[in-house]
C-alpha cells in the first residue's frame, strides 16, 4: 500500500482519476469523441478529450525542458511564454520576409523552424549563462526575459502581424489530411521518445540529478555543474522552439501580448504535479509529462464550466498552493506523525480488546 503512495506517478494519476470521476458525474458527455469532417473535407476527431490531447501536447513538450531546468538549477524558468513569443515571431519573420501578407512563403518551413530553434537556444543560453556563471537565482534571472521577451518579439516583426497563407503551415498545429488525430500529439510523442532515448543512453539524467542534489560534491566528482545547468537551459530553449512552431501554426499568425500567456505557470505546475521537487534534484520525466496532460485536463474542465479565460489563473493558483503545501516537508512530517499516532492508538485499542 505504502509502495503505491510513494510512487511518483501516484500524484498525477490520482489527480487524473479525480478529475475524470468529477467530470463523469457532472456531465458524461465530456468523454464523447465524434468523428467529423473539417472545412477541407478531411476526417478529424473532435471532443473534449481530443482538445486535451491537442493542447496538452505543447505543454508536455515544455514540461520536458522545465523538468531538466528544475532538476539541475533548483529553480524554474518563468520566461518560456515570452520565449515562445520570440521564436514564433522569428518563424513568421522568416516565412513572410519583408512582405507581411505574402501570398507565397519566402522560405521553406524547415528553414524557418531551424532558425527559430537557434534563436530560442540563444535566449536559453542567455538565461543559462546568468544562472550558471553569474549565480543569479533562476527565477530572477529569467525575469529579465519575462519582461523584455514580448517586446523583443514585437520588435522582430516591426510590430506588424504577418499572416501565412500557405495551407501546409497549418498542419503542425492542426491536422494532417487523412489523419484524424491532431498533429501536436505526434510532435510531442517524437519529443518524448527523443528525451527518453537521451536519458537512457547518455548520462544526462544522472549528471543533472547529481548537480541538483549537491553541486559542490558533483564538482568534486569531476562534473562541471555550470555546464550542466547551462545545457539544461539550452534544451529548454529547444523545447520552446518546438512549442512555438505549434502555437503559431494554430493561428497562422501571432498576437504578441496574448500568445502562450501564463504558460510558464502551467509548465511549472506540470513539473510540480509530477511529484518532482521544485528545489531540484531527483526527477521523473514520465510523471512530468503526465502532469502536463493532467493540467490541460483541469484547464479544459474549467473552460467547460464557463470559467472565463482571465479568471483561470485564480483557480490554478489555488491548485498550486494546495500542491506545494501538501508536498512541503514540514506538512508531510506532521501528517505522517498524525498517521502513526492514529495507527498506534488503533493497535493499542485492538490489544486491549
Amino acid at each position, binding site marked *: 500500500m505504502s509502495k503505491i503512495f510513494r510512487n511518483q506517478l501516484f500524484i498525477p494519476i490520482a489527480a487524473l482519476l479525480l478529475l475524470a470521476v468529477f467530470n463523469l458525474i457532472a456531465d458524461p458527455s465530456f468523454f464523447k469523441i465524434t468523428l467529423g469532417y473539417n472545412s477541407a473535407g478531411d476526417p478529424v476527431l473532435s471532443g473534449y478529450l481530443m482538445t486535451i490531447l491537442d493542447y496538452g501536447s505543447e505543454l508536455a513538450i515544455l514540461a520536458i525542458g522545465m523538468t531538466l531546468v528544475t532538476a539541475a538549477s533548483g529553480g524554474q524558468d518563468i520566461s518560456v511564454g515570452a520565449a515562445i513569443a520570440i521564436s514564433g515571431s522569428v518563424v513568421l519573420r522568416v516565412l513572410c520576409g519583408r512582405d507581411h501578407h505574402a501570398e507565397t512563403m519566402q522560405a521553406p518551413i524547415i528553414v524557418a523552424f531551424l532558425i527559430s530553434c537557434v534563436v530560442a537556444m540563444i535566449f536559453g543560453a542567455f538565461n543559462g549563462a546568468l544562472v550558471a556563471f553569474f549565480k543569479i537565482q533562476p527565477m*530572477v534571472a529569467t525575469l529579465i526575459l519575462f519582461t523584455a521577451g514580448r517586446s523583443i518579439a514585437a520588435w522582430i516583426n516591426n510590430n506588424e502581424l504577418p499572416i501565412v497563407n500557405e495551407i501546409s503551415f497549418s498542419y503542425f498545429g492542426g491536422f494532417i489530411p487523412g489523419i484524424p488525430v491532431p498533429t501536436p500529439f505526434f510532435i510531442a510523442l517524437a519529443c518524448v521518445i527523443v528525451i527518453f532515448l537521451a536519458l537512457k543512453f547518455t548520462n544526462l539524467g544522472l549528471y543533472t540529478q547529481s548537480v541538483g542534489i549537491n553541486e559542490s560534491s558533483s564538482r568534486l566528482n569531476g562534473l562541471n555543474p555550470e555546464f550542466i545547468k547551462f545545457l539544461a537551459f539550452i534544451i529548454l530553449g529547444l523545447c520552446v522552439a518546438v512549442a512555438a512552431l505549434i502555437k503559431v501554426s494554430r493561428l497562422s499568425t501571432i498576437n504578441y501580448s496574448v500568445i502562450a500567456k501564463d504558460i510558464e505557470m502551467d509548465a511549472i505546475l506540470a513539473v510540480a504535479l509530477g511529484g518532482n521537487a521544485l528545489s531540484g534534484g531527483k526527477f521523473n520525466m514520465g510523471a512530468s509529462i503526465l502532469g502536463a496532460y493532467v493540467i490541460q485536463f483541469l484547464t479544459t474542465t474549467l473552460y467547460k464550466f464557463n470559467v472565463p479565460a482571465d479568471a483561470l489563473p*485564480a483557480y490554478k493558483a489555488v491548485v498550486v498552493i494546495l500542491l506545494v503545501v501538501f508536498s512541503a516537508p514540514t506538512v508531510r512530517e506532521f501528517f505522517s506523525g498524525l498517521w502513526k499516532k492514529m495507527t498506534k492508538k488503533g493497535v493499542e485499542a485492538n490489544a486491549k480488546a
Partner: protein
Amino acid sequence: MQKLKEKFKNISDTNLLLLITIVVFFLMYIGAVVFQGKGFLKPQTFFNILNANAALILLACGLSLVMITGSIDISVGGVTALVSMCCAVYLDYQGGNVFVSMLIALGIGLAFGLVQGILIAYLDIQPFIVTLAGMFFARGMTTIVHTNPFNVENPNFVALKETRVNVPGMGSVNKLGVYVPAYVELGVLVALLIVLALFFILRYTKLGRNFYAVGGNNQSALMLGINVKRTKFFAHLLCGVLAGIGGYVYFLHVGSGAPSHAQGAEMNAIASSIIGGTMLTGGVGNIIGTFFGVLSLSTIQNIVSSAGLDQAWWTGITIAAMLCLFLVIQSVVMARKKKQVKK
C-alpha cells in the same frame, strides 16, 4: 588621499551599492538635462516623476524588505490591481465612503502578507512559487470581481484624488507670466513618510537588524538566537501591507479599476530595488537606495519616451537591460567580497 583610499577599501557592501545608485541617478538626470533640453530642470518635472511613481516606491520598499531577508515577493503587482479593482467596485456600486475603501485596501494587503508569510516562513515553501501563485490568484480574482475597466465617480473620492499639496518656492512662471505653483499628490507624502519610517526601522530597531542578520546568513542568525521564522514572516507581512497601501496610492493616482492595472509592476519594483543596491542573495540593501532606484528607473523611462522611442517595447527592453547590468555589478561586488575574505 591615502585615508580616502583606506576608507573606500573598508566601505561596506550596502554603502558601496548605495553610492553607485546615487551616482547613477545624478548622472542620468544630468544626461537627461543635457540631451533632452531644459524641461528636466523644472522642479515640476521631478515632482511629476514622484507623482507617477509614489505607488512604485511603496511596492519597491516592500520588496526591499523581503529581499534583504533573502526572500522574494512577485505578487505585489497583482495585489495592486486587486486592491484598485475592489476599491473601485466598492466606491462606485456600493456608494461607500472613502475611509472604508482604505480599510479594504489594507485588509487585502494584510491577507496576502499573512498567507504568503505563513506558507513561506513556517511551511518552508519556496517564496517564488508561493508568490507566483499569489500573483496569478490576485490577477484572476481581479477579473472575477469585475471584468471591464471603469472610472470611479464617487465625489468624495474624486475630491481626495484631486487634492494637491503645493511645494513652496519650487513653482515656475509659465509663458503667460503667471506663477504656477509646483505640487505633489497626497500619495507622494504617504510614500515619503513610509520611506522615512522604514529607514528608521531598518537602521535602529531590533526587527530591522534581524532582517539583515537573517538575510546575511540564516544559520548564524539562528545561532545568535534570532527567531528566523518569525523574522521572515514579518518581512512578508510588511511587504503585503505595503503592497496594500501602494495599491491604494496607485488607485488614488489613476482613479479607476481595471484588470490590466499595474501590469509588470512587480518587475519594476524588483528592478528598482536591485538598482537601489539590494542584493538578491539577501543581507544587503537600503531603503534610501530603493528610493533612488525608483527615481533612476522612472528617469530612464522618461528619457526613453521623450526621445521619441515611445513604442511600448523600448521601455521593457531598457528596463531589462538596466536590470541585467545591475545584476552583473552585484555579481562583481560579490566576487570582491570573496577576495577580501580570502585575504
